[in-house]
């Protein structure tokens, strides 16, 4: 049956839309803000919080660069500097990089696969609160002078009670637990959303590449994060209850920490990088006006990268005296991972080369600018990565500024540039408003230039022998000029981030005016209004290809039959996305917040008293039980029906 769009606008359709709005509406006011389970609202606050942590982490870096701008500077002492670089690394890795990628996915993936909400919406809300409380806790500790001091890697014995007395490292270890719980919750949600909530017809071979990248990333989170949770739990147990996991005097071993930490830490780099690859694929496809070249190769490359990432961790430990055969294996594995990364870069180049260049007002669009910046920077970072994979070279520059330069090229060039592009790209859908292209271009060029001015000299500093994590250095070693240049560059980057903040705030103060599909993109996310309604899709979209919105004049196919008066989503089969279940999703509720508060009490209590783990579990169990108990306030989950009985 064909239904022209004019017929949809009848009174019946309007009534249906109003019913949907009532069903999916949050409670009004502040209580609605606290109780929402809407993936879009939670993603907004997740992204905003992660960006705030990014800016604070960046401000810490600027302070460090002031200290290092000249030799024997007395701007700050060694103790403060230790806390600053530890907080900078921890905040950027645990409170910004991983959460912001997951946060973007929380917004984008359900819309991209045609779902009405993310899987496990209350777990999603819980994840945000746990993440927020963990971040607030560690920054509060930092401002009270009990911030971490042993680096973001917290190597033992430096982080043991002997060398890090007091509570500084304990707060760090529990911050890890907070952020990992939050990250694992989202990973499970994304896996379930991509595997079970796709629109009918969206077979495995039709999943958008960003959704694929988030699926692989989520599996990596699931397999990698338990390692750091275990490592940090062992560490806090050694410090608080006298266990000996890392104590060589009683049969433990300090390198156990490094193995567990890097079994997480190396995949972590790819956990940050893979979402960025997905973002690039979406942006490149849209602005080249053609499907991505080599879709199957791209998906296989994502999987290969995810798999190989677990075989590289020992290349962080070449300087620890491992057997030569082990070193050779990890060198080979480290070099091998360049293959899938390279394959993707060639696919993107082929896509851009053979596509039509979509411009905005005659210029390259800001999202695409950031992607082009990524190509330049990531190739440089990748090349120094291949250099570092070689044992002799690694041992020469280990723990020097060469390594600092390398991982900033990979992480900022490889992940923050695509992220910035993606934020510009998806901002119209997230807020209903388009960011200023002019400010975006200024932001890009300041970032690109400032970044290279900051980090390129660090390669030279490293080769000249400057170790990382030193609070000052003597004059006369030839390190003065590169350090001064790096410090100047850091302020240019700071200015660029400030411009981004101004662009966002200025745009948010304007009325909503973005069209549904301002970039002419091909995926389902752009088929709904900007911003989308609370229920995302009025009817379930049906997909017949990889680019359901191309060509632009093709009608959108839908299936009807999901309830308008209770929160229903469609579950489909894993392989072929055949409709299987009308699944009721939960209504808003306060108990995810209370559960997160109870868990926060447990974690912080356990820093001071090990019984906190046992006694703190009781309020958490109570809160979690009430969360799951059928309630009258949850009509979608049968609560109202029970009352009727």
């Amino acid at each position, binding site marked *: 049956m*064909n*239904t022209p*769009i004019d017929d949809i606008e009848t009174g019946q359709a309007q009534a249906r839309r109003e019913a949907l709005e009532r069903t999916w509406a949050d409670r009004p006011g502040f209580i609605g803000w606290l109780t929402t389970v809407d993936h879009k609202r939670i993603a907004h606050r997740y992204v905003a919080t992660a960006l705030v942590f990014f800016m604070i982490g960046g401000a810490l870096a600027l302070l460090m660069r002031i200290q290092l701008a000249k030799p024997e500077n007395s701007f700050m002492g060694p103790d403060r500097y230790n806390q600053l670089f530890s907080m900078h690394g921890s905040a950027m890795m645990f409170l910004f990089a991983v959460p912001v990628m997951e946060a973007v996915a929380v917004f984008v993936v359900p819309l991209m696969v045609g779902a009405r909400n993310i*899987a*496990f919406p209350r*777990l999603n809300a819980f994840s945000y609160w746990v993440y927020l409380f963990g971040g607030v806790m560690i920054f509060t500790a930092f401002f009270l002078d009990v911030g971490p001091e042993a680096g973001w890697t917290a190597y033992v014995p430096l982080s043991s009670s002997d060398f890090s007395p007091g509570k500084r490292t304990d707060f760090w270890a529990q911050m890890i637990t907070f952020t990992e719980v939050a990250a*694992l919750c989202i990973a*499970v949600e994304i*896996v379930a959303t991509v595997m*079970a909530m796709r629109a*009918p017809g969206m077979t495995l071979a039709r999943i958008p590449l960003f959704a694929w990248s988030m699926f692989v990333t989520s599996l990596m989170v*699931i397999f990698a994060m*338990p*390692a750091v949770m*275990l490592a940090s739990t062992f560490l806090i*147990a*050694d410090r608080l209850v006298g*266990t*000996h*996991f890392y104590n060589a005097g009683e*049969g*433990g*071993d300090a390198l*156990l920490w490094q*193995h*567990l930490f890097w*079994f997480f830490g190396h995949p972590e780099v790819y956990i940050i990088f893979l979402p960025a690859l997905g973002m690039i694929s979406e942006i490149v496809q849209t602005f080249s*006006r053609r499907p991505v070249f080599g879709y199957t190769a791209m998906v296989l490359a994502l999987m290969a990268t995810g798999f190989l990432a677990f075989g590289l961790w020992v290349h962080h430990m070449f300087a620890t005296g491992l057997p030569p055969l082990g070193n050779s294996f990890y060198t080979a594995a480290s070099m091998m991972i360049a293959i899938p990364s390279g394959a993707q870069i060639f696919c993107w180049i082929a896509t851009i080369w053979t596509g*039509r*260049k979509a*411009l905005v*007002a005659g210029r390259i669009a800001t999202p695409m600018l950031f992607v082009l910046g990524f190509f330049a920077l990531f190739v440089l970072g990748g090349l120094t990565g291949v250099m570092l994979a070689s044992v002799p070279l690694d041992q020469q520059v280990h723990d020097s500024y060469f390594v600092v330069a390398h991982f900033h090229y990979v992480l900022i060039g490889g992940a923050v540039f695509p992220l910035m592009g993606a934020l510009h790209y998806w901002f119209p859908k997230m807020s209903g408003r388009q960011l200023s292209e002019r400010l975006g271009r200024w932001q890009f060029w300041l970032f690109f230039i400032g970044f290279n001015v900051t980090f390129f000299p660090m390669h030279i500093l490293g080769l000249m022998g400057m170790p990382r994590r030193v609070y000052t250095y003597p004059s006369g070693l030839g390190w003065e000029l590169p350090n001064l240049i790096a410090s100047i560059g850091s302020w240019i980057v700071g200015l660029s981030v400030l411009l981004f903040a101004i662009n966002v705030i200025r745009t948010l103060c304007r009325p909503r005016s973005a*069209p*549904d*599909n301002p*970039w*002419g993109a091909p995926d389902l996310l752009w*088929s709904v209004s900007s911003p989308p309604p609370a229920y995302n899709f009025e*009817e379930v979209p*049906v997909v017949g290809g990889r680019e359901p*919105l191309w060509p632009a*004049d093709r*009608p*959108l196919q*839908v299936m*009807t*039959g999901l309830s308008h008066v209770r929160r229903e989503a469609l*579950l*489909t*089969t894993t392989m072929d996305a055949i409709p*299987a*279940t*009308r699944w*009721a999703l939960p209504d808003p509720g306060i108990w995810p917040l209370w559960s997160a508060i109870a868990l926060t009490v447990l974690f912080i209590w356990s820093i001071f008293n090990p019984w906190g783990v046992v006694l703190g579990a009781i309020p958490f169990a109570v809160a979690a*039980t009430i969360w799951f*108990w*059928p309630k009258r306030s949850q009509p979608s989950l*049968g609560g109202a*029906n*029970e009352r009727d009985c």
Partner: protein
Amino acid sequence: MNAIAEAAVERRDVEIVGDLSDLPDYNFGPTSLGWWGVFGFMLIEGMGFVLAIGAYFYLFPFEHHWPPVPVRPPSLLWGTAFTVVALLSLIPNLWLDRKAHRQELRPVQWGLTLMSVLGLVLVVLRACEFTALNVRWDQNAYGSITWALIALHTTHITTDVYDSLVLNVLVFRKKVDGRKFSDVSDNALYWYFIVASWVVLYVIIYWTPRWL
């Protein structure tokens, strides 16, 4: 070269190609979100067990004797009793899973009650096990990792027994919707994981110190 604005498309025509109203509102296995939740958390926790076991064998060569002299291996009584009861519990668990799939309320109610009781028995046996490890967690690294393995499993079994008790109350309420059957089936799946992971841990904790 085309301008983005030209490509920007407003609402397009909609074509209805099917109706979903006849679909069930609950299901078993991968077409139920509960299954994906249990599956995801089994992966996470399974990885936790694998890594903790890896740490156990990583620490193993750092001692001349395992356990280090004069520590004795854990006494077998309670751990073996726990293992036997856990393995026997698989029979009613399998039966309960089948009844849940057939959506037979009365057998599900009593099957879940039996599983809850067995779970509580196992928690008591576990408490006894802690008294028979023959080593303290703060004595040496062997003691630390042994306690870590058993504590990790205890966290899981305690959580699952509590979860079963809550579900048990829910299936005795006046109105039981179909999704509860699916929940019971997912709970049974998790129990397999608890028992399977324990069998591996039992061999490691109790027999590695005797065999290696």
